[in-house]
């Protein structure tokens, strides 16, 4: 039977984590822009959309900072 346990052994652990980080960063930026477009274009109440944008951005930024802190500490 083929052993797949070392399938990612050619990728250094740090590189894999950095790849995950950039993937998450890119996903966050793209999704946030799409959400922002929808809120600006279609939301009936600009106040709710602004609060949603602030909460979304704040939590996303905190999580990205946490990921970066962990990456540099590893």
């Amino acid at each position: 039977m083929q052993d797949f346990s070392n399938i990612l052994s050619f990728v250094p652990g740090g590189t894999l984590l950095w790849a995950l980080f950039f993937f998450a960063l890119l996903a966050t930026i793209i999704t946030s822009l799409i959400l922002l477009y929808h809120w600006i274009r279609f939301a009936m109440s600009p106040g709710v959309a602004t609060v949603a944008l602030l909460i979304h951005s704040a939590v996303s930024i905190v999580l990205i900072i946490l990921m970066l802190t962990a990456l540099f500490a590893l």
Partner: protein
Amino acid sequence: MIYLQQDERVLIKSRKHWFVIFRELFSAGIVYIAPFLLFLFVDVFGYLKVEPSAMGVVFLLSFWTLLNWLIIFSIWTNYYLDIWIVTDKRIINIEQFAFFSRQVATQRIERVQDVQIEVKGIFETLLGFGAIRVQTAGQETAFIARGIPRPDRAKQVILERVDSTTPVQE
């Protein structure tokens, strides 16, 4: 954004029932905690061969939370952009299916012939929400809005408005 006419009066403006978004968020929550449960299971039964570093756990936790946070906000946006408006002239149903997939259906109130409500299942019955089906003149397919809170009240408001706009036949 929906622009109403100057003399148009809004009779009902409602989003879907809160249980509709709760159901979707609950599913997202299950997906979010699944890896933690798996990790706990592996750890408790001693299958975990390596001791994970604290910062590694922080990284993976933040990564997973961020991805789920994006999913949660997408669910909320889809919920928030769905809206059902009954005015004294029209019935407007805005349905956001996904990003870049949106349907805005409008029916003139005087064309309404029949209004049906459908309340199916234990949650819909207990929490008081359901679908409303509006049949209009000259259309084979009915106009359907789902997850509407208090559909019986909505039906009553629409029929009262229809009666007031339809001329009484002698």
